[in-house]
Structures are given as structure tokens and as C-alpha cells.
């Protein structure tokens, strides 16, 4: 196995089996804490600077079993999976859970984790979600400061500004390298399949940033650019806080499409914004939070002058995508609320689109395949040969 292949395998392993990665990390970092971070906006740099491994708790794609007793079936798949992880002890790898976002379903799952294991710290540091308010900057800064204090309490250390600045640089470098890969894909490189890219980003959400970057660099050294073929170019949109099933990504490309860009949580949404390095680190962390929604709008935030629909159209224009596939996790209310705005914008622009509602279990792949093939056919008719 080449070094690049081995590196990719290591990334894949971390993405798909984060608990093994955590245990290995613990063995080399005795006495240091592992923090379970719940999506979407907790600044992991704070924990990293305290010597804590901040792991964004993923949907581990296990069937929901005992968790069914704690959340209703009309909660999204990710939150039901979290409740199941709590109910079956699969969150025991984390010394604490921190959440910075007010999503009522996410808080429901988090409360299940808190109730089932009262001894483990579970902290909500709610970042303001209405970002146009005159007090938004101040409230963000205050909450970031509170999060810093809470991390310090967990880790039993004081976070030095120099350490925080170093952590910011480490995460920025990793995000920058990831961005190069995604920008290359948008420009015509199809060296990586959507599943490979998802694994690479999902690994970044678990791993130490320096370790991740070194592995990714090794992968890139070993992987040559590959020109995109003539399949229908599609943009994947949605899945705001967890990964879509890998088999769904595979079916999309099998149906005659090639993914050229996305705004997925395990895609561009994770890496789009960096933390400013030229300003004091706490100020920078707060600025990063504000920048994220501009760099890639999220329907969980309220910001009147930032439009996901406009962003999507611009993105489609940049990548040359010929169609958009909306991947909407069933019961995701912010996505359900915003979807008509996306649909209207794409319809107006004449961009073919398909809404696929995804579920944690029981994805009807053959049904999706047929619908995807129909989308591909429709997009084909927009090509010049059909004009």
C-alpha cells in the first residue's frame, strides 16, 4: 500500500470509527480530556488550545434501538442516533458534551444524554442566532468567553492566548488544505469520489488538526488530478449538521451524475470559513462565527442580508453545476422552512433540481436511483446538443 493509500485509509478509519481513534489518542495523551462537540458552531480551537481533543460527535450510522424509548420517531435521524448513542453507552468515550447551538431537536437529544448520565458535564453555551441585531457581536463575544471558561474548567487549565492562536492556525491550515481539494473539484478535478471526500472531512471533524493535515497532505501527494468526465454536473445541497449515507452518494454518481460542489456539513460547510489570524484570538473566534454564515448561509441562523438561495445560485454558477440535488434529512425544520426559497430561486434560474428526503435507516435506494436518473435525463436535455 502506498503512503497515500495508507493515509487515506487512516482518514477513513477515523471518520468511520471515531471511537477507535479516540481510544488511540487517549493512549498517547494520558490524562487529557476528550470533548464531545455537538454541531454546528462550537469553536473547537478553544478545546484544542486547552489540550483537549474536541470531537464533533457524528451520526455513527448504527440502527436506532434503545434510543427509540427516549425521543419520538419524528425527530431527525441524527438526533435519534445521538439518543441511541446515549442510551447504549456509546457516548462514554467523551468526558463531556458541549453544544453551542439552539436546535430544539439537538437539545432534546442532548438532554437525553444528560439525563442518562448525570455525572458527565453537558454544557449549553447558546450562541445568538439572530445575527443582524446590534448586540449580536457583543453577545457572541460574551458567549465565546463563557465557553472558554467552561473548557478551562473541564480541562483544569488556563487557556493562554498564544496557545489559542496556535490552535487557530492549526485548524486554519487544515481547513485551507481541505478547501484546496474542494476548489479543485469545483474546477474540474474528479480525483476524489464523493464518499472519499466525505470521509476526509468527517475525519477532520474527529481528529487533531495537525495530524489530519499531515495525512491529507500525504494523500494529495499520491493522488493525481483527474479530469472530470461528461456526466451531469450536480451540486449537493443540505444535510446541515451530519453526513448523508455513503450509499446515497454512490447512487448519485452511478445514476450518471458527477458531484462538482456541495454545501453539506461533511463538505464545504465545514471548511468554508477560517478564523482570522490578524486579530486577537478571542475576537477572531467571535468573528469566525459571524463569518461562517456569510461564507455559507445556514437556515438555522437569521440574517436578513444573507441568502442561502443566492449563495446556491452563485455556487452553481461557479462550479458549472447543471442540477441541484437537495438532501433533506427528514424532520429537519430549518431545511423544510427554507427549501421553498431554494426551489423558487432555482426554478427561476432554470436549474433542474430534485428533493431527496433522507432517513437514518431504510433509505429506498432503488427509488432514489430512478428519481436521480430522471433528473439526469432532464439535465441532459438542457445541454446544447438538445437545444
Amino acid at each position, binding site marked *: 500500500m502506498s503512503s497515500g493509500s495508507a493515509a487515506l485509509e487512516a482518514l477513513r478509519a477515523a471518520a468511520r470509527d471515531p471511537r477507535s481513534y479516540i481510544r488511540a489518542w487517549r493512549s498517547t495523551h494520558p490524562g487529557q480530556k476528550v470533548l464531545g462537540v455537538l454541531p454546528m458552531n462550537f469553536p473547537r480551537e478553544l478545546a484544542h488550545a486547552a489540550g483537549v481533543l474536541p470531537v464533533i460527535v457524528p451520526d455513527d450510522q448504527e440502527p436506532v434501538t434503545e434510543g427509540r424509548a427516549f425521543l*419520538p420517531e419524528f425527530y431527525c435521524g441524527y438526533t435519534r442516533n445521538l439518543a441511541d448513542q446515549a442510551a447504549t453507552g456509546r457516548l462514554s468515550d467523551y468526558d463531556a458534551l458541549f453544544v453551542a447551538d439552539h436546535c*430544539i431537536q439537538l437539545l432534546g437529544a442532548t438532554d437525553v444524554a444528560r439525563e442518562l448520565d448525570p455525572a458527565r458535564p453537558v454544557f449549553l453555551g447558546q450562541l445568538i442566532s439572530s445575527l443582524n441585531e446590534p448586540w449580536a457581536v457583543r453577545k457572541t463575544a460574551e458567549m465565546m468567553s463563557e465557553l472558554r471558561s467552561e473548557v478551562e474548567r473541564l480541562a483544569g487549565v488556563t487557556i493562554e492566548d498564544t496557545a489559542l492562536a496556535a490552535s487557530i492556525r492549526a485548524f486554519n491550515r487544515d481547513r485551507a488544505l481541505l478547501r484546496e481539494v474542494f476548489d479543485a473539484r469545483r474546477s474540474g478535478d474528479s480525483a476524489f469520489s464523493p464518499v472519499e471526500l466525505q470521509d476526509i472531512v468527517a475525519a477532520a471533524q474527529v481528529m487533531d488538526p495537525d495530524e489530519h493535515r499531515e495525512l491529507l497532505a500525504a494523500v494529495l501527494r499520491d493522488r493525481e488530478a483527474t479530469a472530470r468526465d461528461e456526466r451531469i454536473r450536480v451540486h449537493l445541497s443540505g444535510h446541515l449538521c451530519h453526513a448523508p449515507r455513503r450509499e446515497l452518494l454512490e447512487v448519485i454518481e452511478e445514476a450518471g451524475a458527477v458531484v462538482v460542489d456541495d454545501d453539506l456539513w461533511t463538505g464545504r460547510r465545514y471548511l468554508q470559513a477560517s478564523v482570522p489570524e490578524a486579530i486577537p484570538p478571542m475576537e477572531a473566534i467571535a468573528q469566525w462565527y459571524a463569518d461562517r454564515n456569510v461564507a455559507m448561509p445556514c437556515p438555522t441562523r437569521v440574517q436578513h442580508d444573507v441568502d442561502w438561495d443566492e449563495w446556491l445560485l452563485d455556487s452553481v454558477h461557479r462550479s458549472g453545476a447543471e442540477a441541484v440535488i437537495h438532501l433533506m434529512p427528514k*424532520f429537519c*425544520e430549518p431545511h*423544510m*422552512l427554507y427549501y421553498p426559497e431554494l426551489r423558487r430561486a432555482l426554478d427561476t434560474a432554470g436549474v433542474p433540481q430534485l428533493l431527496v*428526503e433522507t432517513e437514518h435507516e431504510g433509505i429506498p435506494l432503488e427509488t432514489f436511483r430512478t428519481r436521480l436518473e430522471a433528473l439526469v435525463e432532464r439535465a441532459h436535455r438542457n445541454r446544447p446538443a438538445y437545444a
Partner: protein
Amino acid sequence: MTTTAAPAPERARRLAATRNGGQMVAEYWEDLFTARERGKQIVWYNGGAINPIFQAAGLAWCHGEAFAARLAAQQLEGPAQLAGAEYGYNAELCSYSRTHLGCAVLTVQGDEGANTGVVGAHDQAELAARLPAPDFFVNNYAGCSTGQQWDEISYRVFDKEVPIFNISHPFLWGNRPDAGYLKGEEWESASHYVRDQLVDLIAWLEKRTGNPFDWDMLRESMTYIKRAAELRREGLELCKSTPAPATFWDWISAIAPINFLPGNQELVDYFQSVRDEIQHRLDNGISGVENERYRVYFDGIMNWNKLGFLSRKFAEHGVAVVAGRYITNAFWQEPQLIDTEDPLLGMAQHYLLCPTNHGTRTLDYLTLRDCEEYGVDGIVFHSTRTCRAFTGPQRLLARSAQNTLGIPSIFFEGDVADASFYKDEILESRLTAMLEAIDVKRAQAS
């Protein structure tokens, strides 16, 4: 196949006084529908009862959830929901928001509605199409994250042409050991944070309307509301008696007046009449349910399509639904917090006390407290299909009630404003089973 035929005979003895409230509410809506003609500016809002501020700002106000609930209670939600569905809103989306956004779509379409082929609602005398377009949006939503997003989408449906003001509410999670119901640093800081935003809202309204805010009017209306809320609490206290002189369903009927009617003497008189009728029943041995045999707590937001039906169904089984989170722990439920000379802090605190804005630990405290104080035999959880905020902690609450107090519970599925989610057979069979279990427990204890 679901059947919704009402059981007979009638064993529910609903309060007569609440009918007057129904009339007051009907007049309120009629007044709102013609507000534009009378030169009023109109605000659409969601969340906590911020209407006293609108009253003092000289505005007419429309509470989005209340309007959706009213449509559902009158079986008139269909056209708005269909318009929303055609626009693209998924059937699993909060049906309050789906109905209200459907109204927004219909309102935006305006006179073009007849040409869209969407629902034809505009040509009908349907309530959904009578909502006057807003001049402002104000979002005052605590608890559920969907609330703030919903108004932002309303703002976009109106092409960003209607000014909007958002009030942000910290979720009362209970991070610190000192946190608890009405106490702790988290409670204090959140209260002042929201209070400060109300000050900003008032300045924003003054600027937008061009009118100075009438602080005396605010104090006056909050004085009436505080008194009405005290009377409401007194009535709720009286319902701890066995048998209960009135039930949860009576209090559901009295939600609209306390939630959004103007603070005035008429409101006080209404709750005085409700309280007095309950006292009269107590004095004369009249119960809210004929031959009360069981006392039940109802957790869940109301199924507005089924209010009368559920009232009769439970009474048919001899069940007095005596309390519930949506009644006991909502709607100006802590009037002692209101300083009528300086009401903003107490108002802010009530917005934070939305029954979906607490972590499970506080809800657990409130639920167990109420179950004990009302002498409850069992809990019925309305698993409100499109309300994730209310349903999230329900399973944990059921577990706690069973483990702590030995109180059994059942779940039934329904929804706030979408009748399609209600399954009568499920409620019927589960309710019967729970009541039998209660009988067995009583027999074993005797």
C-alpha cells in the same frame, strides 16, 4: 380507518363562562380583519404574549400561532395548508408555521389569488384569506428554534419588504448547580437580557410607527393582565379539589383571552367570571366531569382540531383532565413577577417561562409538582407530531413520573393544527388500558 364520532352520552360539564371568552375572541378577530380600514398598522408576531407592547404602541396585532390554532379549531385550516404545500412546505413541518406561512402566501397573492389556481381560497369567505397583510413582524419566540426561523421565512415570503424585529431568548438549560425554576444566575441574566431587548423593541416601534410609546397604557394594560392572571391562577388552584370543578379543556378554551386579548377591564371581568363559576361549582358540589373516577395530567400542546371531541372522550371514561403543562405552566402563570409600575422585567420573564424553554430537569420538577398537587392518577402525553419542542422531553418525563411517583402514562399521536395525524383508535385503546391498570392498582391497594 380513523373514526372521530363523538362518544355519547355527554358527561363533560364545560364551564358556561368560557363561552363569553369565545365571543370576545371572535370580536377581536373581526376587529383585526378590519383594522386596515380603520387606519391601523398591523403587526404579525409569534411566541410569547407581547401584545401589551403593541397595545401601547397603537398597533393591531395578529399572533400567528393563535391564528393557525383558530383556523384548526374551526376546521378551516385546509386552504392555508394547501397553499403552503403548493409553495413547498413539507407536511412534517410545524403545522402552526405551515398554516401561518400558507396564510402569508395567500396574503401575498392577494387579489391575484383567484388566478393562481392554488386553492381558490381567496374567492371564498375563508378565514385564512382575511388576514390583513403586516406592516411589521416581531418575533418573540422562546423554546423552539423553529419559531425564529419561521418568522424569518415570513419576512422572505413578503420579499423582505416588511420590517422585522427579533427578540432572542436564552434557553433555560440549567448549566449551573444554582439553576432552577425562577432561580439562579442563569435565570437572572436571561431575564435582564430579554428585558433590555424589549426596551429596544419599543424604540424600534416608536421609530417605525412615528408615534411615541404610551408607557401609561402599558402599565395600565399590564395591571389588568396581572389581575386576570391572578384570577386565572386562583381558578386553577380551585381545580385541585376532588372532584375537579373544571377541567383542562375549560382552561384550553380560556387560552386565547389570556394569550392575546387586550389588557382591559373586560379581560379581568372574564377571568373573574371563570373563577367565580368554578367557586360556585365547588360550593354546590358540581364537578367538571360527571362521576369523576380518574384524574389525569395532559402533557402536550393542544390538538386544536379535536378540542370538543377530546373533552367528551375523556369525560366518557370518567376522566377529569385536571392539569397540564400547556395550562398550568404557561400564559402569565407567575403574575407575582409583574411589577405593574415597571412591567418589562416581569414580561420578559414570562416569555422565558414558555413551557418549551426549559431543560428536562426543570420540566421534571414542574410535572411532578403538578401531578402531586392535583392528585393525578396518570399522564396522557399528546405526542404532538409536528411540535418537536413539546415532545422532546416527554419520554423522559414519563419515565420520571413512573419511577418517582409510580404514575403510569400513555402516549397518543396528534398534532396542533393538522387533523391527519390524529389516530383515535390508538388513544382509545391506550387510554382504556391505562385506566384498567389504575383500577388494578387501586384494587391491590385496598
